[in-house]
C-alpha cells in the first residue's frame, strides 16, 4: 500500500510519521506538498501535526484552503482513508471532514506528556488491530486540543459510535486529571460517519518504538495496513 504525508508550511511532525511508517512498518511513503494537486494513487493520506500557517486566525483555518485540500476532500468522499494527527485533526475539523472543533486547552497551558487512551471502537480501518477497551500510551503536545461539539452533534457521535478514543488514567477510567485539555466527554479522537476519516490529538507516530517509551502508536498504523490489505483496490483514483 502507499501512504501520502501532506506537508503544509509550518507542519513539523511529517518526518516522524515518515520515519515511523517507513522504518518501523516498512511502508511506501511519500511527502505531498500542500501547493500541489493530489496526484497518483494512495491508500491513506496523513495530515501531520505542527503549526500550519503559524496557527494564525485559528488552528487549521487557513490550511484547509491549501490547493491540495480539494483533492483530499474528494479522496475522502470516495472512501479513501484520511488520518489527521494533532494539527491535522484541527485541519480536518475546519475543513468539515470531521465534526466539532478544537479549542484552547482548559488549563491555558501547552501540554506535553504521555497520556492513556481507551480504544472505544474497533470496527474502523484505524482501530481494527486493537481490542475494545484496550489502553494505548501515546504522547500529546498541543495548546489547543480541547474538543468541542454542540449537544446535538455529541449525541450523534455517541449514537453512531464515532468516538474512537477517550483520555483515561492508567486503569482505563475517565477522570478530569486524566483529561489533558478539558475535552468534552474526554474525547481524544473521532471519525466521520463513513468511518474512513479519523482525527486524534495524541501522536501515534511518536510511540512507534520501545526507545520512545511506547510502541502503542503502531496499533493505529498497522490497523490501516491490515484494512488496506483487504481493500487494496480502493486506492484512489481507482
Amino acid at each position, binding site marked *: 500500500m502507499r501512504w501520502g504525508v501532506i506537508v503544509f508550511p509550518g507542519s513539523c511532525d511529517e518526518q516522524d510519521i515518515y520515519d515511523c511508517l517507513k522504518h518501523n512498518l516498512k511502508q511506501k511513503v511519500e511527502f505531498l506538498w500542500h501547493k500541489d494537486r493530489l496526484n497518483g494513487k494512495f491508500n491513506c493520506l496523513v495530515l501531520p501535526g505542527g503549526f500550519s500557517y503559524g496557527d494564525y486566525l485559528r488552528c487549521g*483555518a*487557513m490550511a484547509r484552503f491549501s490547493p491540495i485540500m480539494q483533492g483530499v476532500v474528494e479522496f475522502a468522499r470516495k472512501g479513501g482513508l484520511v488520518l489527521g494527527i494533532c494539527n491535522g485533526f484541527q485541519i480536518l475539523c*475546519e475543513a468539515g471532514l470531521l465534526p466539532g*472543533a478544537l479549542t*484552547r486547552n482548559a488549563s491555558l497551558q501547552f501540554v506535553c506528556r504521555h497520556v492513556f487512551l481507551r480504544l472505544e471502537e474497533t470496527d474502523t480501518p484505524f482501530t481494527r488491530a486493537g481490542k475494545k477497551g484496550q489502553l494505548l500510551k501515546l504522547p500529546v503536545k498541543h495548546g489547543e486540543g480541547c474538543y468541542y*461539539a*454542540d449537544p446535538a452533534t455529541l449525541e450523534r457521535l455517541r449514537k453512531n459510535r464515532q468516538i474512537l478514543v477517550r483520555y483515561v488514567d492508567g486503569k482505563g477510567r475517565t477522570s478530569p486529571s486524566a483529561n489533558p485539555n478539558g475535552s468534552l466527554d474526554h474525547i481524544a479522537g473521532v471519525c466521520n460517519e463513513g468511518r474512513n476519516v479519523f482525527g486524534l490529538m495524541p501522536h501515534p507516530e511518536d510511540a512507534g518504538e520501545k526507545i520512545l517509551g511506547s510502541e502503542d502508536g503502531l496499533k493505529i498504523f498497522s490497523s490501516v495496513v491490515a484494512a488496506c490489505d483487504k481493500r487494496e483496490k480502493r486506492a484512489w483514483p481507482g
Partner: protein
Amino acid sequence: MRVKIFVCLKEGVLDPQGKAIERSLHTLGYKEVQDVRMGKYLEVDLDVPSRQAAEVRIREMCDKLLANPVIEDYRFEIEAEKPSAVSDQPLTKTGLKADG
C-alpha cells in the same frame, strides 16, 4: 469602505482566557465583574460600490474563513463613508500628538 468585525466564542463554549481575565479583574478589586468573554476584532478595508455589497461580501468571508460556525458567532459594523479626507486627517494627527 472600512468594516469592523467582531468574532466571539458562542455561549456554552468554554472560554478559558475569558475566565482567566475575569479572575485577574477580581484580584484587582473589580468585584462587580460578572463574566468576561474574549474574542477577536478585525478591520477590513473594502473597495466596493455600496454598503449592501460590503455586507454580502463580509458575511461570506466570515462564514468561509473569519469565524468557525461550530464555535464562534460574529457581527460587524460598516463604518460611515468619510465625508472627506481633509476633515479627517488633522483630527487624527492632533490625537496622536496629544497621546505622545
